[in-house]
C-alpha cells in the first residue's frame, strides 16, 4: 500500500516537472533559457516517472528502470547543451539585455 502511494507520488512529481518544462518553453524569451528549461526540468521529471514504474508495475525490475534512468541522465542534458552550443556557434544573441554573449572571438566554445 505504501509502495502504491510512493509510486503515485513519484508519477505526479514527474508530471509536475514536465509541466514546469512546458511552461518554461512557452514563457521564456530566449533560445538559451528555453534550452535550460528543457534540459533540466525534463530530466528530473522523466527520472521521477521512471522511478514510479517498479512500484506501480511489479513486472518491471528495478535494474531495468535504473538503466533507463542512467540513459536519460546521460542523453537529455547533453541535448540541452547542444542547443546552447549550436546557438553560440551560430552567433545568436540573447533576447534580454542582461544576457550578453561573453565575446565573439573566443576560439573554444
Amino acid at each position, binding site marked *: 500500500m505504501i509502495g*502504491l502511494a510512493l509510486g*503515485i507520488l513519484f*508519477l*505526479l512529481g*514527474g*508530471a509536475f516537472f*514536465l*509541466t514546469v*518544462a*512546458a511552461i518554461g*518553453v*512557452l514563457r521564456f524569451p530566449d*533560445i538559451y533559457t*528555453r*534550452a535550460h528549461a*528543457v534540459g533540466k526540468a*525534463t530530466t528530473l*521529471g*522523466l527520472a521521477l*516517472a*521512471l522511478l*514510479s*514504474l517498479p512500484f*506501480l*508495475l511489479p*513486472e*518491471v525490475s528495478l535494474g*531495468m*528502470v535504473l*538503466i*533507463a534512468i542512467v*540513459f*536519460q541522465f546521460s*542523453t*537529455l542534458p*547533453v*541535448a540541452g547543451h*547542444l*542547443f546552447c*552550443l*549550436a*546557438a553560440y*556557434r*551560430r*552567433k*545568436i*544573441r540573447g533576447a534580454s539585455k542582461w544576457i550578453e554573449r561573453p565575446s*565573439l*572571438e573566443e576560439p573554444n566554445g
Partner: protein
Amino acid sequence: MTIEAILIAAASLSGVIALIGLGVGVRGPTLLDRLIGLDLFTIALVFNVICLAIIESDAHRMEFILALTGLGFLTIVFFFYFLTRDPEIEAAPDAEIASGLEKDAGEGAAKETRPSNASSAAELGADEEARRDGSRREHTLQSKLTGAQEKEPTP
C-alpha cells in the same frame, strides 16, 4: 479506481504537453526553437508511454521507452551536426558579425595556402633551405596580405 483516474489524468497531461511541444515546433521564431519543441514533444511522448505501460500493465514497453529516448537524442545530435557545418543557412544578425565571418574565412584560406608551399619546397631535399624558403614565402605572403588589406579600404 482512483489510481486509474490519476493515471489517465497524467497521460492526458502529457498529451497536452506534447501538443505544446508541437505548437512550439510550428511557431518557434528560429530553427533552434523548433528543435526544442521537437525535443519536448519526444519527452512528453516518453512520459505518455510510461503512463500507458502502467495503465495496461504491459512490461514490454520498457524497450520502447529506451528506443524512443535514443531516437530523440540521435535526432538532436545529427541536427546539431548539420547546423554547425555551414553557418550561413540563417542570416547573420548584424554587420559586425558578418565582417567577423569574412575575417575567419580569410584566415582559413591563408592557413590552407601555407602547407602547400611548404610541401613543394620539401621536394627539393634540403631541409634548411626548405625552411628558409618557407619562411621567405610566409613573409612574402604576409606582406601580400597586408598590402591587400591596406589596398582594400582606399576605394
